[in-house]
């Protein structure tokens, strides 16, 4: 698209609500507007699976529209269709009341629709500035990019979003929150009229979430429509003007600010089938230590960490993103080398030379990123489940031949135990919904004799139903004697699940909570309790 390079001027936008208008006035003004985007009777099938069965949905300019639903309910399919990544089988998409056919992602962008995915499709080595204008026709001078003009043009966006960091920093050196600002800025320089955000707060701290909300509200005040996809219902309730709940590829319910409650949302999402609140954990923990960690160090992320996980215990590791929890998990799992410290398993000191050693000793890790770290997406459920202990499926111990039939029958047992919803264990993992994929990553460790299972964000981006099932499975696993370490940034997760919680701050343990003392408030308070003595040089 060519045109004047004054990015972010939003000339195509309808009149904004009057500045300084109160929330209610704004909301009423929004309700009166004609929809910017309207979807009627959208259908889409993949193979035999009907992902969308006639979805109706509309977004008005200047509103924040929540989109929730269990994994597999059709949210991603709806978003991908709007983004031009895939074509619908049937139904109509209207923009400003006239039907359009969204041909490809570039076309969606030209129509003013912008999509920010959880993974933030940015080029890590590029500077913030380069990512900001990625995919845009740049002003040139004698055939070269005129960076002075670029900077001048993006200045309003930078100011509007309050970006305080240098635009010359490569984005790989920026925090997730800063990268989100760039993603939103990217949408603005492309003159977005609608921005869809997928789980924007998944990796943000409470404070950063607050800032993001401020920005989203400001965007809405300027007349931009925001689709906000999230599993965090508290955030949906706080932020969204309207909320649409999808279930089984159909509209299950829709709420507006005046009548939305958490219970109502959960009921609509789950359809009343699933237990949604988790009863207090049964403390099956014995006094027998399984994993003992002493003075673990690997700078800069891990300064000094000691803890013990007992047989049958679920130990939580709380704290802010970046406090060193993932790094501790990687050290215990042998994925990184220790600089100092000791690890013992069942009373015997162990020295891991690599992940293979850890796996052999019965230590398992469910990594943070299920798609990129946990699964071989193009392989079957059975092949993925068998991955950590392939040698167990040998027909004769000395020969490398394996029995696929035994691999499949064991996979079926694990799938049943974890309630993995897949057509069969020979289904391709990449085609399952997020919650079921996560269950496969956990299931990988159920086939062997797992003594210690470490889970890094086990239910991130997983719907409430699957989440309850995962929690129940973890408790079962603990009661059979496995020591479990759970890392979670989700404030609601650790209190319901853990026997004990340690909170990390800047590479060290800041405090411990037990039983009824494990509350969101307590974890949050400890997370900000900066340790005395400062950082080790």
């Amino acid at each position: 698209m060519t045109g004047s390079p004054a990015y972010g001027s939003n000339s195509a936008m309808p009149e904004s609500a009057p500045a300084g208008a109160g929330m209610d006035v704004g909301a009423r003004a929004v309700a009166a507007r004609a929809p910017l985007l309207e979807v009627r009777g959208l259908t889409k099938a993949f193979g035999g699976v009907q992902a969308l069965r006639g979805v109706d949905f509309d977004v008005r300019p200047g509103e924040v529209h929540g989109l929730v639903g269990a994994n597999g309910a059709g949210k991603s399919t709806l978003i991908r269709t709007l983004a031009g990544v895939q074509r619908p089988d049937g139904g109509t998409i209207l923009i400003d009341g006239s039907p359009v056919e969204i041909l490809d992602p570039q076309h969606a962008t030209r129509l003013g629709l912008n999509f920010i995915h959880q993974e933030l499709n940015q080029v890590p080595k590029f500077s913030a500035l380069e990512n900001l204008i990625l995919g845009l026709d740049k002003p040139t001078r004698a055939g070269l990019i005129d960076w002075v003009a670029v900077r001048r043009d993006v200045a309003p966006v930078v100011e509007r979003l309050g970006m305080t960091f240098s635009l010359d920093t490569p984005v790989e050196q920026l925090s997730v929150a800063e990268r989100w600002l760039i993603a939103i800025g990217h949408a603005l320089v492309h003159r977005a009229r609608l921005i869809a955000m997928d789980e924007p707060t998944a990796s943000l701290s409470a404070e950063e979430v607050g800032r993001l909300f401020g920005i989203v509200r400001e965007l809405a005040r300027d007349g931009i429509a925001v689709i906000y996809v999230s599993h965090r219902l508290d955030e949906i309730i706080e932020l969204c003007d309207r909320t649409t709940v999808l279930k089984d590829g159909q509209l299950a319910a829709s709420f507006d600010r005046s009548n939305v409650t958490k219970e109502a949302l959960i009921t609509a999402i789950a359809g009343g089938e699933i237990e949604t609140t988790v009863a207090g954990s049964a403390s099956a923990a014995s006094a027998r230590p399984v994993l003992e960690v002493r003075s673990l160090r690997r700078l800069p992320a891990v300064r000094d960490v000691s803890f013990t996980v007992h047989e049958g215990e679920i130990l939580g590791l709380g704290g802010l993103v970046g406090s060193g929890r993932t790094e501790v998990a990687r050290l215990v799992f042998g994925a990184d080398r220790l600089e100092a410290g000791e690890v013992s398993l069942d009373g015997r000191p162990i020295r891991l030379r690599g992940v293979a050693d850890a796996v052999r000793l019965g230590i398992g890790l469910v990594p943070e990123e299920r798609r990129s770290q946990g699964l071989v997406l193009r392989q079957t459920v059975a092949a993925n489940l068998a991955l950590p202990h392939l040698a167990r499926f040998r027909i004769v111990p000395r020969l490398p031949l394996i029995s696929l039939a035994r691999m499949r029958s064991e996979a079926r047992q694990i799938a049943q135990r974890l309630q993995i919803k897949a057509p069969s264990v020979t289904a391709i993992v990449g085609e399952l919904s997020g919650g079921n994929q996560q269950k496969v990553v956990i299931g990988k460790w159920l086939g062997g004799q797992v003594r210690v299972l470490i889970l890094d964000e086990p239910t991130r981006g997983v719907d409430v139903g699957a989440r309850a099932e995962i929690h129940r499975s973890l408790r079962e696993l603990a009661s059979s004697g496995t020591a479990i370490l759970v890392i979670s940034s989700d404030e609601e997760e650790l209190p319901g699940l853990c026997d004990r919680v340690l909170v990390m701050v800047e590479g060290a343990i800041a405090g411990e909570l037990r039983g009824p003392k494990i509350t969101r408030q307590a974890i949050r308070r400890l997370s900000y309790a900066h340790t005395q003595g400062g950082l080790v040089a």
Partner: protein
Amino acid sequence: MILGMLPHHQPTTPARRRLVVFLGQYGTIVGLVLMVVFFSLARPAIFPTWNNLINVVNQVSLTAIIAVGLTMPLAVGEFDLSIGYAASLAGVLVAGLMVNQGVPWPAAVAAVLALGALIGLVNGLFITKAGVNALIATLGTGTILVGFNYAYTGGSAIAFGLPDAFRVLTARGVLGIPNTIFIMAGIVTVLWILLNRTDLGQSIQAVGGNPVAAALSGIRVERVKTIAFVVSGLCAALTGILLTARIGSGESTAGDGFLLDAMAAAFLGSATLRDGEFHVLGTLIGVLIVGIGFNGLNILNVPTFSQFFLKGAMLIVAVALSSIARRHAKA
């Protein structure tokens, strides 16, 4: 706003999508069948005969062996560009050991196979331990092998004095079928089992699919990759040995051309039956397509130079098919 100016595209209907998927997975097989039917109708007296069948399969056997070997590095997500040069070196060396050094043929064969494994090991270690890009590493080792080759032969063929017993490898055996075919069938079977029915094969597929997830599942990724290169080196050496036995002399550049044929076959194969994954059976089908194509054109008396057109075009089409298959797998 801009909508009016855009060309109106036909939406992809489910039927059309299904056709694309079908062509992706079975297109190569359909192509193979069509080719056989076409040549059979064009030359009914020559093409569809037992003799010609044996002839074609015999011709493609060496390509099949080197190509299924190459399938292993490809399956772990790497490349091996050294195989053609490795085959050439193996060919002259096995001849030289027997003719110049008077080594008995089984010992010469064993030594050259060991050298092939060593070449693979070196490739694997450069790539996994030193972190050299596989294309560069194997191009480098391949070029060094050319150097050894010329140093050993001075560029001239080792043509006389090959023991007759050695040539039993490619002579006609049971039912008049050349032994090469049996060897090829054996190698293909072993590698099919290796890739599909062993824990190593599962590891190879996992490493090719997602090396990070494989490593975090306790798979020794570096070791698996190195083994894949060793298999590829072994198969290249065996191909070189059989080539020398077949043509009756060790020639410095005789094996070089196998790289392109093997590559074309493996990429054609990766678009067959599975979504862009490299697998043994697919590679074999790829080899047959390439081989039958050339055989048919020969029978039709198409001039030799046009075979290069076919070969080049086939390589490009193969890679295109493979990447289309992979894209569909992602969608």
